[in-house]
């Protein structure tokens, strides 16, 4: 058969078979026992030409209500943000996206340096000493933090705030089961981790306490207060954080966090129906040699020229094999590159301006809901999300909104039985005053 991805001609094939010393390609498969041989071809859809496939998949994509044709107020861990156009131009450089892990540093300096810069930027935002080259996503990064903590403290219990992203919480629990670690939830009070209950729950058997900042309800957790309680028991303080918020908020590293993990999706990475995004993982110097995944370090060549290599690989699965504490191999390198380009484009000033714009616009929306007679659950300072109480099921309200090409907020009743009819609303810098006003209007009489 002829195919644009398969360059061998009949003449090539003939010459090659001759060199090998066989008469047919089939002979090369003679080592597959008859009993397991698959005969014929797969029963799958026939191939399509480039044009026909583009047409079919264009139509399939158009069946979805996307965030470009609709106005979205949905967040809950994945956000519709300003993506500098330049990000995709850099990502489209195929020297980056068609390469693999930079095992040969002499011809991978581009990737290695880009990741070194990513690590540096994550350290700057989180206020931590060391960041790795990326994890799959925020949820699995948090799970790795729990496992690192258990290994480091030799303790087998982890406390996690109920105000942590519910899906991340579930992922932590799945990983914990593998490692025989017990995960116990700390309740929230008025949308904030209940410090008084935490004080009662914590003891010297607790490896780590995991909280989210800003938390799942958009609230800003009092990290300082929590830190004292946690470190009094020598437990590790793990903070899951939206890195964009850290353009405006005091970084967890300044507030005593031992591990900061999360997802860099807000920086230049499309929502993409939930993935691929880009987990990040940052720690204090003390934990440097316990970090999962790849690390890029600076060094010199024989002539003293600065260069970058994968380093501290003794920690990693391919060296430690069954002694490894994490099995991550491939990560999200290309998305770390996207996040780097976006963080670079925003820079020192833009990241702050964008974070504050989120706070201002979300606050404006919150005030508008209040003015309309809606009740805001969990009153208090928020980043770019807040919770509104409705008088009808959120799913129903969202169906109505969809008719107006609005994607409404998240149904908290899915995860919290006491929060039925509560909508978590996200307002990012992309939403205009007009869009916010329209949204509040369309929400009409759904106030409780």
């Amino acid at each position, binding site marked *: 058969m002829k195919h644009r991805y*398969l360059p061998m001609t009949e003449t090539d094939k003939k010459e090659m078979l001759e060199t090998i010393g066989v008469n047919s390609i089939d002979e090369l498969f003679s080592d597959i026992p008859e009993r397991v041989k*698959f005969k014929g071809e797969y029963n*799958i859809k026939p191939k399509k030409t480039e044009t026909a496939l583009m047409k079919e998949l264009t139509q399939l*994509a158009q069946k979805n209500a996307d965030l470009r044709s609709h106005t979205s107020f949905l967040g809950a861990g994945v956000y519709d943000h300003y993506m500098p156009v330049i990000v995709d131009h850099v990502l489209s450089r195929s020297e980056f996206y068609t390469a693999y892990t930079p095992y040969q540093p002499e011809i991978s300096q581009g990737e290695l340096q880009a990741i070194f810069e990513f690590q540096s930027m994550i350290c700057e935002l989180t206020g931590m000493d060391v960041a790795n080259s990326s994890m*799959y996503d925020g949820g699995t990064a948090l799970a790795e933090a729990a496992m690192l903590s258990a290994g480091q403290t030799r303790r087998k219990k982890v406390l996690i705030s109920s105000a942590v992203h519910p899906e991340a919480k579930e992922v932590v629990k799945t990983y914990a089961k593998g490692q025989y670690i017990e995960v116990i939830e700390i309740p929230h009070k008025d949308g904030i981790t209940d410090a008084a209950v935490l004080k009662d729950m914590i003891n010297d058997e607790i490896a780590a306490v995991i909280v989210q900042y800003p938390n799942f309800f958009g609230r800003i957790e009092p990290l300082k207060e929590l830190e004292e309680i946690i470190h009094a028991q020598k437990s590790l303080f793990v903070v899951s954080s939206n890195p964009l918020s850290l353009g405006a908020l005091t970084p967890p590293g300044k507030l005593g966090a031992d591990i900061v993990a999360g997802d860099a999706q807000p920086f230049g990475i499309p929502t993409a129906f939930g993935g691929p995004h880009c987990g990040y993982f940052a720690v204090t110097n003390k934990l440097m040699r316990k970090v999962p995944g790849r690390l890029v370090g600076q060094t010199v060549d024989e002539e003293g020229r600065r260069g970058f290599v994968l*380093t501290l690989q003794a920690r990693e699965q391919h060296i430690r094999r069954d002694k490894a504490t*994490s099995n991550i191999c491939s990560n999200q390198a290309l998305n770390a590159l996207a996040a780097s380009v976006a963080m670079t484009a*925003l820079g020192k000033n833009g990241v702050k301006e964008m974070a504050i714009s989120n706070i201002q616009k979300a606050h*404006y929306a919150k005030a508008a809901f209040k003015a309309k007679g809606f009740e805001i659950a969990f009153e208090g300072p928020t980043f770019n999300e807040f919770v509104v109480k409705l008088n009808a099921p959120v799913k129903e309200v969202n169906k109505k909104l969809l008719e107006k090409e609005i994607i409404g907020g998240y149904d908290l009743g899915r995860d919290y039985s006491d929060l039925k009819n509560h909508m978590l609303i996200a307002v990012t810098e992309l939403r205009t005053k007009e869009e916010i006003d329209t949204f509040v209007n369309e929400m009409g009489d759904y106030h409780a």
Partner: protein
Amino acid sequence: MHKDDQALIFEISKPGRIGYSLPEMDVPEIDINELIPAGYLREEAPELPEVSELDIMRHYTALSNRNHGVDSGFYPLGSCTMKYNPKINENVARFPGFAHLHPLQDESSVQGALELMYDLQEHLIEITGMDQVTLQPAAGAHGEWTALMMVRAFHEANGDYNRTKVLIPDSAHGTNPASATVAGFETITVKSGENGLVDLDDLRRVVGEDTAALMLTNPNTLGLFEEDILEMAEIVHAAGGKLYYDGANLNAVMSKARPGDMGFDLVHLNLHKTFTGPHGGGGPGSGPVGVKADLIPFLPKPVLVKQGDQYELDYDRPQSIGRVKPYYGNFGINVRAYTYIRTMGPDGLKAVTEYAVLNANYMMRRLQESYDLPFDRHCKHEFVLSGKRQKKLGVRTLDIAKRLLDFGYHPPTIYFPLNVEECIMIEPTETESKETLDAFCDAMIQIAKEAEENPEIVQEAPHNTVIGRLDETLAARKPVLRYQKQ
């Protein structure tokens, strides 16, 4: 600074420059101190670069010029399947209807995305010969761990808590033992015989009532098909264990032998390898897992189901191992893999494997005079050479790899698998032309000659890369892992 030094983005930063255009602040602003509690408003700005848009583009273009990808040149990195990454995949993944979907939208508004996922699952079920597939794992290692968690849940559901051991051949990928450990198992190594295949006697010796599973790559990392696979399956199943297929090498057997027909109970695939992900400089990947019917109840949540003509996500899975990842996997990579499969069709996928195997055998035969060939038989999609003859001349496999850089190639995988001395593992893939294979073989043959006649040129390689061999000891001893403003 040396003239060839590439500045860090931080080093070209200048206060006052910007590279962004944020949307208007069109709502009335309130004093930020009123909105953020005292002590939680950042005082020192993060030291991110201040650069113009052109600065950014020049910087990253310069970096890309210091990087080798499949589009730059031949990349025969064994077990990594560095094939051409079709451009249509990139276009399709960027359609707004795929790229800009929120995972928590109402299911009615994402039917197109769910349909694609469902159809991809159906295709992967047929390709692997399994009964069900989950697309959730983000990469190969994540898939391995997911599958092993299911094995554990399966045994525990049978009240079988003593199956604590996972058997792994000595030629396995390093992720296999690491994944088994993270899933809470102890690992036992199974030896390979002289012929490079799993030693059945050793397997019989280690298998038992405590065996949870055997993890196997077939063809194995030496590029050899495990001919005794059915006997192995029988031994493991008779002992009550499960058989796990590491799909890293699936490019070797598409349309020739399916894991499900070989007796495997679970399989993970690397969509960034066989199905043109792409590799992205080390990710993102995608590592779907396929299982036989008796393991379906343990699949991670949610499971995608079809009700009439509607697609739904089923969360009511009481025996599920739980969530392994937020949302539904690396959807963007799955879109690319689906596009690829639909571009190839059944005859295309068959041809892929045939040419991948033809190319590997051709190269093996062209190189067998110049290098030691530890296993002289037909290989599958990849083969291993040993550089021990060259080592006697003072030229190590590492030197050979570095010398290849001078010819513009990415070197093969080296020093892996661990059971071959001075190992060189070559995987050409099906998308390379005969001219490319010949030119690479010529270079390898020339290097073998150089090792005899002029070893210094190999030992001191590379000679024309942007940087020489780097001091890795220094990097590990005095780690500098970030830029810090002086």
